C-alpha cells in the first residue's frame, strides 16, 4: 500500500462521515443546542483552540505522570502477584478494588489526606489506569513458554534472573497491550478527576473547560473538547503502538508484517 493511500483514505473516510453529519444536521434543521454541526465544532476549535490546547496541556501533565506511575506500579504488582498463586489470591482482590471504585466517591477520602491537587488528580488517574496493566502483565508473565521455564530451572536461575530474562520479555507484548488500554483510561481518568476535584487556582485542565461549556450550553465547544480528547487519546495510542512495534519487531507475531502480505 502506498504511503499516500495510508494517510489519505482514513482522512477521506473521516471527511465523508463529517459531511454526512453536516448534511443530516442541515436537512433536519437540528439546532446547534441539540447537536452542533461539524462546521460549528470546527469553528469552535478554531476560535477556542489555543485556549483549549493550553488546558489540554495541563491535563496531559497529569495523564502522562499517571501513566508512568501506573506502568511502574502495575508491573511491580503483577510481578509480585506472579510469585505465587497464594499471593495472587491474597492480593488480587485489592487490585480489583482500585478498578471498581468510582472516582466521584473516592475523591473526598483522598482529598482529606492529600493536600496538593496535582497529587490528588494523579492518584485518581492512576487508579483508573493501573488495573489493565496489572491484569495484562500478569497474564503475560504466566504465558511464558514452558520449555524456556525448564531451561531456566535447569541452570538454577534465581527468581530475579528468571524474571528479568524470561518472564518480563515474554510478558512484554501483553504488558504493551495493557498499556495501550491504560493510555486512554489515564486520560479519561484525569478528566473525570479534574471534574470532581480539579478546581484550584488558575491552572485548570480540559475538564473545567468541558464542564463550563456544557454548563453554559456551548455544545459546539463541548464537542470540540471531545474531539481534542479523542485526538489526544489516539495520539497516545499511536505512540504506544509505535513503541510496541519497535520493541517487538524482531520476534513477536503482532509486530511483524501483515501475514497476508508475507
Amino acid at each position, binding site marked *: 500500500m502506498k504511503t499516500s493511500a495510508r494517510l489519505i483514505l482514513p482522512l477521506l473516510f473521516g471527511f465523508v462521515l463529517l459531511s454526512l453529519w453536516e448534511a443530516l444536521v442541515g436537512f433536519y434543521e437540528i*439546532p446547534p*443546542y*441539540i447537536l452542533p454541526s461539524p462546521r460549528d465544532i470546527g469553528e469552535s476549535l478554531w476560535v477556542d483552540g489555543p485556549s483549549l490546547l493550553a488546558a489540554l496541556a495541563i491535563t496531559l501533565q497529569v495523564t502522562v505522570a499517571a501513566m508512568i506511575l501506573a506502568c511502574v506500579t502495575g508491573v511491580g504488582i503483577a510481578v509480585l502477584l506472579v510469585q505465587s498463586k497464594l499471593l495472587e489470591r491474597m492480593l488480587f482482590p485489592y487490585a480489583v478494588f482500585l478498578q471498581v471504585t468510582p472516582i*466521584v466517591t473516592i*475523591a*473526598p*477520602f483522598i*482529598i*482529606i489526606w492529600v493536600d496538593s*491537587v496535582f497529587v*490528588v488528580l494523579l492518584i485518581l488517574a492512576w487508579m483508573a489506569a493501573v488495573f489493565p496493566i496489572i491484569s495484562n502483565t500478569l497474564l503475560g508473565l504466566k504465558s511464558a513458554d514452558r520449555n524456556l521455564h525448564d531451561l531456566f530451572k535447569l541452570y538454577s536461575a534465581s527468581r530475579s534472573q528468571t524474571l528479568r530474562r524470561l518472564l518480563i520479555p515474554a510478558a512484554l507484548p501483553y504488558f504493551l497491550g495493557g498499556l495501550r488500554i491504560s493510555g486512554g483510561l489515564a486520560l479519561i481518568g484525569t478528566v473525570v478527576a*479534574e*471534574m*470532581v*476535584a*480539579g*478546581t*484550584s*487556582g*488558575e491552572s485548570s485542565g480540559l*475538564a*473545567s473547560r468541558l*464542564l*463550563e461549556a*456544557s*454548563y*453554559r*450550553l*456551548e*455544545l459546539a465547544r463541548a464537542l470540540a473538547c471531545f474531539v481534542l480528547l479523542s485526538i489526544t487519546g489516539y495520539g497516545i495510542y499511536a505512540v504506544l503502538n509505535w513503541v510496541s512495534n519497535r520493541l517487538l519487531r524482531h520476534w513477536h507475531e503482532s509486530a511483524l508484517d501483515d501475514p497476508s502480505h508475507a
Partner: protein
Amino acid sequence: DSSFATDQITFGTDWRAQAEHGGFYQALALGFYDDAGIDVTIRQGGPQVNHSQLLAAGRLDFGMSPNSFLPINFAFQEIPVVAVAAMFQKDPAVLIAHASRGHQTLSNLKTEKIMISPETRIGFWRFLKVRYGFTDNQIAPYTFNVAPFLADATSVQQGYLTSEPFVIDEAGIEPSVFLLADSGYASYAAVIQTSQRMIDSNPDLVQRFVDASIRGWYSFLYTDPAPAYALIKRDNADMTDELLNYGHEMLRRYGLVDSGDAALNGIGIMTEARWRAFFDVMAEDNVYPADLDFTKAYTLRFIGKRVGMDAVLRGAD
C-alpha cells in the same frame, strides 16, 4: 373544566430529591397537578446530571434552575428556553466556616482556603470575586462531601443552607453559615424554565403548571409537609425525616421562598429589577457581554397573580 385531556409532562429538578423540592412534591402528592389536568413526572437531578441540555433538546418539558445563571446562559446561547417563575427569592447557597474561627462577615473569608465545586466556580464564585474581591487561588476542590471540611479546622466550603450545615452539625462541629443572599447576591433559585415553543403553543399548560407548583409550595410551607416527604423519600431512598425537617425549617426561617417581593405578590414572583441587579454584577466580571439582552432570559407573564395566597394566609392564621 375537566373536559380537557390530561397533559403529560416531565419536570427535571436540579438535585437529588430534598426539601428544596418540597413544593413540587407536595403538589404532586396532594393532586394539585392532577387537578390542573397535568400528569407530572419528576426526574431528580444530581451532581453529574445535566438537565439543562435535556431541557434545551426538549427531552424535559420543564426544568428547574438552581440559580439565575442558567436562564441567562440560555439567552446568551440564543436557546429558546425561558424562566417562567422563581420559587425561591433567595438562593440557599452559603459559605460555611468553622465557628471556632470566629469569622463575622463574608469579607473575613477573603483570605481563607475555600472548597468550591467546578460548577460553582463559574457560578456564585463570580459574585464573590466582583463584590468581595475573592481570588481564584483561594479555591480548593469540593466534592459534595463535607469530610475534608471537618478534617481541616481552617477550611471554608460552599454549601446549601438546607443541608450541609445540618450534616456538619451532626458530625459535632459547629458551623458558621453565611447566606450569600443576605450579602447582596441577587440570584433567584428554584427557577422554573420551559421552552419558548411550549409557551407559544400551550401557554395555558405553562400557567397551570406554574400555578399548581405555587400552590404546592404554599401547602408545603404552611400545612403538613408529610405527603411531600413521602414522595421525596421514595425518589431518594437515603433521605431522612430529620434532614427534611431541618431543610423545611431553614426554608421558613430564612424566608427563602416567600420573603421580599413574594410576600407582596406571591410565591414565584420575579422582577426586571432583580434580574438586572444580578446581570450587572456578572457583566462587570465579563461573564456576559454588557450589551446582552438579559430580558430574553425570562418572562413575567405567568406570575404575580397571587395564586394560592389567600388560602394560605387563611390556613396560616
